[in-house]
């Protein structure tokens, strides 16, 4: 049979109609061209936890064609206050498989690929290859360095979120292979005992949830062309759910540095290469200190 002349089915027009009628300011795509870009997009979400849960649901709802999920962890009752893509019946199920079930229930048009494995220097290239965008929804600094390094080598943009307690941060790394990478911002890793590097810290569910949803907004903006090489300005957003001194919630957007000429990863003469990463000669464990972050108060 010849391919259908209509690129979207009637079901898809019905499903996405309310977002397709949003009129975007130039040069952002809207309507059918934007929906087709979403449909052909391949987005990899690393971590199906507090950030990944809402990000996955909203990207699936929006009609992203292919969603990859990397997570080797299993659903635990203690996750459910914030990891709202899972549920109590799925305790002990792999998070990536639980997330896949929820996505398929919400939008069966999405092609979901699961990677029930821990991301490492030896599997990252193979997993990342072919994706248009990566969402870093992980919770340890060593993985953040690894994701940024591999994305730089493959030329993939990363939407990076994080949070603890009532605060959260958002930035875009390696935008179109010209924006700054994680090492441009943080050439030296934080000491493992430092205050906010505590992966076991407490967290208010919707505070990390706000950031997960904002990551979905940034991903959609990236796919529909809101950011261009010409207009992109490196930024870091800091969200605070309980800013204390004022009513409401606060969000600050900081103007950040551009690519650093002496960056170990994204500069013209990088000491970090695909070969050095894959061979294991960049020791992420050692570099970021022990993985025991329980020392935090």
């Amino acid at each position, binding site marked *: 049979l010849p391919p259908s002349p209509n690129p979207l089915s009637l079901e898809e027009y019905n499903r996405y109609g309310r977002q397709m009628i949003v009129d975007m300011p130039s040069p952002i795509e809207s309507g059918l061209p934007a929906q087709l870009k979403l449909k052909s997009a391949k987005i990899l979400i690393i*971590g199906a*936890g*507090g*950030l*990944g849960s809402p990000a996955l649901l909203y990207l699936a709802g929006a009609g992203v064609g292919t969603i990859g999920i990397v997570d080797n962890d299993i659903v635990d009752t203690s996750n459910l206050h914030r990891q709202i893509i899972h549920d109590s019946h799925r305790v002990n199920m792999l998070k990536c498989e639980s997330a896949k079930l929820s996505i398929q229930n919400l939008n069966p048009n999405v092609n979901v690929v699961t990677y029930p494995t821990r991301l490492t220097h030896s599997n990252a290239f193979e997993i990342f290859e072919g994706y248009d965008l990566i969402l*870093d*929804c*992980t*919770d*340890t*600094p060593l993985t*953040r360095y690894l994701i940024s390094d591999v994305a730089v080598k493959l030329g993939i943009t990363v939407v990076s*979120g*994080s*949070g*603890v*307690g009532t*605060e*959260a*941060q958002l930035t875009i790394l390696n935008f179109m292979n010209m924006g700054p990478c994680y090492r441009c*911002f*943080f*050439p*030296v*890793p*934080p*000491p493992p005992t*430092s*205050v*906010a*590097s*505590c*992966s076991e*810290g407490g*967290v208010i569910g919707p505070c*990390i949830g706000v950031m997960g949803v904002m990551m979905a907004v940034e991903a959609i903006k990236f796919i529909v062309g809101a950011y261009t090489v010409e207009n992109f300005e490196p930024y*870091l957003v*800091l969200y*605070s759910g309980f*800013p*204390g*001194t004022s009513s409401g919630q606060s969000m*600050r*957007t*900081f*103007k*950040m*540095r551009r690519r650093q000429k002496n960056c170990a990863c994204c500069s013209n003469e990088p000491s970090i290469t695909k070969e050095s990463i894959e061979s294991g000669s960049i020791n992420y464990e050692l570099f970021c200190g022990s993985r025991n972050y329980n020392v935090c*108060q």
Partner: protein
Amino acid sequence: MVKVKVEFLGGLDVIFNKERVHKVEVPQEDPVTLKDLLDYIIDNMIANKNDVPVFIENDTVRPGIITLINDTDWELEGELEYELQDGDIISFTSTLHGG
């Protein structure tokens, strides 16, 4: 002497009596640099001296802390050599790693 607002965000307030925002007057003749402000913070604002390494390492802001001058990355403003102006907002925020 220069009057600035100093903010400790992303959990850094724990070593500053849990106060996120401080009005600071650095009692020193102009120009007052960001390095001078760091010295003032170490000497006068960190409640427990054991906490100094949480904020400072090798005479500068500890790796993993982002420093902002009026909401702009200090790398764009001269870092330690930046000369403070009255009314400046200097923010320090830990990077967060949870997800």
